[in-house]
């Protein structure tokens, strides 16, 4: 047996636990669109078993089918046998990367991502020169390509790359008088380079609650995109780099404002070093300190509610897959919202159903990603909300893309941005322009 198949042998018992009941069909967003077996976990598990039994091989066809998964974890949450299908599919992809290499678009993207300084330089340049390539759309953080670009659908609405990354907008330590806690903020790529507005909101809100924030300068991509694509070696390089970087600051807590980034710290990093006890222990130590921002505000800080002003909006919430099923944080963002005076919260149908973004999935499979998103857009419309909040930059971008393309006016924000807005509204002496600033996005 080849070394590549050996990777699958490690999970042979886990694969055998799938009893082929097909319950995953109920919840799989990809199956909902295609209604074919290879699109759902049961089929993918059968394919991996076929590779192991020698009935099949790690072919282009195998690659194509294993790629059809948004890693939303809905199948794993549903499985009566406790099969962690999402993790098994990633194992399948690891075998593919070892045998056949990465998808060409991802390969190019990860090659850039691999060299942190180069990646940083590239995105700074994109922020400065982006307007040459992307036309800004009025009213929100949305742009559309001016000319065809490889790997990018022509009609796709992207968020613009910030002209100044978040971490360059602030000193490395954002101090407060009499800090209650000292936290290190893991910004993640989307908040550092694209949605700096979310990063600013995090810093404002933490300041409001007497929390000192450090933004470790050398932090890098959380590794989730490379990990779910099956490039486990590169993922471990990123994980190790981030662990070493954050250890140096010895913060009370690590805070992230993205479900996937938080999941990486809390779950993926310790799992990645299963066969390296020393690194695993270090990863676990940091994992125990890591919180998603709404979770941190509700569970640890017990955020201030006495000085919140009114935010008049009808709001619905989309739970990102990695928030709902990755780290199981759905109650806290709702508690944040419900604390804000003036907010009329309307729950949408199936708020935790995947929006179709799937991180880098939507780069390689944009059409499918859009079709899945159509269901989310319909669920949003039913609520009559004017504002959608979520906890993931990729979800925000993908839902915004769908709304703009269908000519709709709902705004999409991170939950913490509404809290920031409420604190601002609560300051009587604050100049009136905060409101305009909010609507400008």
């Amino acid at each position, binding site marked *: 047996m080849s070394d590549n198949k050996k990777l699958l042998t490690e999970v042979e018992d886990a694969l055998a636990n799938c*009893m082929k009941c097909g319950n995953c069909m*109920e919840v799989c967003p990809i199956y909902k669109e295609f209604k074919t077996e290879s699109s759902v976990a049961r089929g993918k598990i059968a394919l991996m078993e076929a590779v192991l039994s020698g009935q099949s091989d790690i072919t282009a066809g195998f690659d194509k089918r294993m790629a059809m998964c948004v890693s939303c974890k809905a199948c794993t949450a549903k499985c009566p046998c406790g099969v962690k299908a999402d993790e098994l599919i990633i194992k399948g992809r690891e075998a593919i990367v070892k045998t056949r290499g990465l998808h060409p678009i991802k390969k190019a993207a990860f090659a850039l991502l691999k060299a942190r300084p180069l990646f940083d330089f590239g995105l700074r340049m994109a922020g400065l020169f982006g307007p040459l390539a992307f036309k800004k759309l009025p009213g929100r953080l949305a742009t559309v390509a001016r000319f065809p670009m490889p790997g990018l659908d022509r009609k796709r609405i992207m968020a613009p790359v910030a002209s100044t990354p978040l971490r360059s907008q602030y000193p490395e330590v954002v101090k407060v008088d009499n800090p209650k806690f000292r936290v290190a903020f893991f910004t993640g790529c989307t908040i550092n380079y694209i949605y700096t507005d979310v990063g600013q909101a995090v810093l404002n809100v933490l300041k409001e609650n007497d929390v000192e924030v450090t933004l470790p300068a050398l932090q890098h991509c959380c590794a989730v995109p490379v990990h779910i694509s099956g490039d486990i070696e590169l993922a471990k390089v990123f994980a190790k780099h981030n662990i070493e970087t954050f250890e140096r600051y010895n913060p009370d807590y690590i805070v992230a404002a993205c479900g996937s980034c938080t999941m990486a710290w809390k779950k993926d990093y310790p799992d990645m070093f299963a066969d390296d006890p020393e690194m695993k222990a270090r990863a676990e130590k940091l994992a125990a300190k890591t919180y998603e921002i709404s979770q941190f505000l509700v569970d640890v800080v017990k955020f201030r509610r006495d000085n919140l002003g009114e935010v008049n909006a009808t709001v619905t919430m989309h739970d990102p897959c990695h928030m709902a099923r990755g780290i199981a944080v759905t109650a806290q963002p709702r508690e944040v919202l419900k604390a804000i005076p003036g907010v009329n919260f309307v729950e949408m149908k199936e708020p935790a159903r995947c929006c179709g973004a799937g991180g880098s999935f939507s780069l390689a499979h944009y059409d499918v990603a859009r079709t899945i998103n159509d269901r989310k857009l319909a669920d949003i419309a039913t609520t009559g909300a004017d504002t959608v909040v979520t906890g993931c930059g990729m979800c925000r971008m993908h839902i915004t893309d769908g709304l703009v393309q269908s000519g709709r006016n709902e705004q999409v924000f991170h939950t913490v941005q509404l809290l920031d807005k409420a604190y601002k509204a609560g300051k009587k002496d604050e100049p009136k322009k905060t409101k305009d600033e909010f609507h400008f996005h």
Partner: protein
Amino acid sequence: MQSGLLDSLKRIVGTEHVLTNQEDLLCYSYDATPGFSHMPEAVVMPGTADEVAKVLAAANDAKVPVYPRGSGTNLSAGTVPLKGGIVLLMTRMNKIVEIDTANLVAVAEPGVVVADLNKAVEEFGLIYPPDPGTVATATLGGTVSENAGGLRGLKYGVSKHYIMGLEVVLADGRILNTGGKTVKDVAGYDLTKLFTGSEGTLGVITKIIVKLMPAPEARKAMLATFGNLDDAGQAISAIIAAKIIPATLEIMDNATIRTVEEFSKAGLPTSAEALLLIEVDGIPEVVEKEAAKVVEVLKANNAAEIRVAQDAGERDKIWAARRAALPALAKLRPTTFVEDATVPRSKVPDMIRAVNEIAARYNVTIGTFGHAGDGNLHPTIVCDIRDDAEMDRVYKAMDEIFAVSLKLGGTLSGEHGIGVGKLRYMESQFGPAGMTAMRSIKKALDPNCILNPGKLVGECG
């Protein structure tokens, strides 16, 4: 498969609706039944009855097997393409054609998921009662073909009690209509019932007229534990003798109780020999009266503990224990066989005792739970299909379980169907005359034996 036939299939349904890639074929080589798999040569996804007709005509001419398939969740290997050929995937035909509230019927295509049909009729205050465990994934066509039942079988029956008419494509491609929307219809042979539960061996169902029922206004769930299995058995019969027909009357044996408790810590007494879960439904006043009567009967039959759900939350808790039965057992070992041997309800304790004795004798792990009120038990055998020695014992135990159910006056299948999983026991239930009669029907309707060949009645060539 000859390229001429493949070309015809692509012309009929469109190239994009024919799968021939190795990986796709592998994904249709199995269903939810352990131990059976075989690759088809093509997967064909028709969009209309007319396309189904053309596909069958072409396959019939070429004498190539055709295996109709919905979601592939059946437990009797009913959809496994054991002789290669064509898997006819019906999931594209998923429209609800009509909901007719005046006649209390719905008309739907076979690819509609049963739960989706229920969601659609719910807003009219109606239900489609058959609710197999796979209700959220299984298709209407699949459940009708397998004659699926569910938790409400005692009061509401199984699929065949709700099918009023069908559109069926015969093996040679001719389209046939049976039944209709009328409550009374005694004209001719009852072809509707013949095709219902025929497991895709007699024709391909392309449209289904189902009977709907008014949704019950109220429900009340109860749970009772018994230190003695016979007391539980007595209680089951006594409830019915008291002229109460609960919607649901479920039993869990000691092995199942212990497994559920280990996984879910629901506070079930692990020493209890049996647990009964009961739900009465209907008009609120009647429900209250019946629930009180059930409690009385349970007490009279030495129930150790009785819980009556006071609200929706408590009701959910009671049913969570039942829902946990299969997942908890399935988590014990890699392979799970869920059987559905069914006996007259008075024989339920005898059946459970026999299963336990068989499990001990062959050293296999079996938990038994199921629909006690209608005698439909689910002896669930958990094992590892990769262990040949263990599987030898498992299959022997299985043989004995079915033999006992027949001996007790029961049947091989309460709701899962025969497929190939239980084919080897058919002769002992029906005898040579019965098998010959069924094979004659098969041959008359499908002379080339292309429809799901080798299943239900076995080889017919």
